């Protein structure tokens, strides 16, 4: 699953533009991910600050 580190995110929308599934959306300064996400990691690659991470499991 995709983990969003909101404390790092600069809400720029770069990730939204590359997501092949259209799963991400910027609600003003709040990035959301919906269940169309298939954990491909493309968004995590492009993020200028590393605010996205694909994890195997839900973090505890």
């Amino acid at each position: 699953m995709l983990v969003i580190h909101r404390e790092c995110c600069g809400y720029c929308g770069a990730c939204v533009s590359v997501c092949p599934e259209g799963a991400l959306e910027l609600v003003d300064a709040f990035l959301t991910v919906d269940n169309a996400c298939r954990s491909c990691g493309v968004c995590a690659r492009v993020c200028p600050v590393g605010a996205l991470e694909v994890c195997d499991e839900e973090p505890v």
Partner: protein
Amino acid sequence: MKSRYDALVIGGGPGGAIAAGELAGAGHSVCLVEKRPAIGAPVRCAEGIGKDVLKEFIAPDDRWISAEINGARIVAPDGVSMTVEQQMAGSKVGYILDRKIFDRDLVWQAASRGAEVHVKTRATGPIVEDGAVKGAVLETCGTTRKVKADVVIAADGVESKFARWCGVDSAVPLRELMSCAQYILTDIDIDPGLTVFYLGNKVAPEGYAWVFPKGDRTANVGIGISGRRSRDGNRARDYLDRFVAAQFPGGKTIEYIVGGVSVCRPLPCTVADGLMVVGDAARLADPMTGGGIYNAMKTGRLAAGVASESISSGDCSSSALMAYDRAWRDSKLGKTLERNWRIKEYFITLSDEKLNTIIHSISKMNLKDFSVFNLVKELIRHNPRLLLELKGLHDSLKAG
């Protein structure tokens, strides 16, 4: 907010603001919605624009001009630089804007021409009837409303979702999305009239670092790298921090922003029934420079012209709106985008050694204007072998 307008514009950036203003000026009812609470903030831009193109849209105003530019410098990977100066002595060629104020002024201009404006109002989906876009679902502070319109103009920027919701795949390939970070640095030594571009795979793989003056000792200092070269420890922000440590160790950061710019080809089609896509949402930023303010304003204006006719004639089908798609593609803008995309595809293949050779061949260049085209033509004049190396590049230059 009414439940119906002639036109609904999604996004309050330069593209949306110009489109809304022109439609309102032509006497149509227009509603512009912007999801952010403040137009233009945070900025996602290095704020550079040519003087001549800007004045097609708005009269220059000191409130949003941070600096005037009269030349550019390109720094090779090995540090040797080449300075490009405008031929006409004394005349400045470009501005560095203050986009928080600039973008808001454009929306203000649209509002004065009669457009309705709603901030902190987000489009969450289209209204589709019989396969045609007929409006949008809008959300403001928890309230959802359906608003109908003859034409919807998607001007929702790089993070555009609207066209996608209407069935247009607008995802940018990873390698063609420039991942960017930028600081406003102050208390640094710069030439306040020069924009400076640093090239090289160590500085900014498949991209460049920039220093765009915002005043005598202040500048937008930023970096863009290809998404495919972005990795933990080597992200845009890491490259920027290394660049700043090397070039401006004493600089003080007074603003920090991140962003994405597409350097792909434009969407294959920028209209559908009831829908037009302009600016970054249509992937119209320049692939060589990453500049997209002018392209957004220009396509906003072209879209408004065609929308106005279509609304008046009662035919907003994709075949009627297609006149807009043809208009921008056939214009200088459309041709420049295609040519610069080809030049970009060539430039990203060059090694640092090759870039050094090319830039060393000229240390000072006088150009009538700063276009990528003139720059590349001049580079080729000094390095004729460049042409032999890539036939495609040759063709794209001839096409210009």
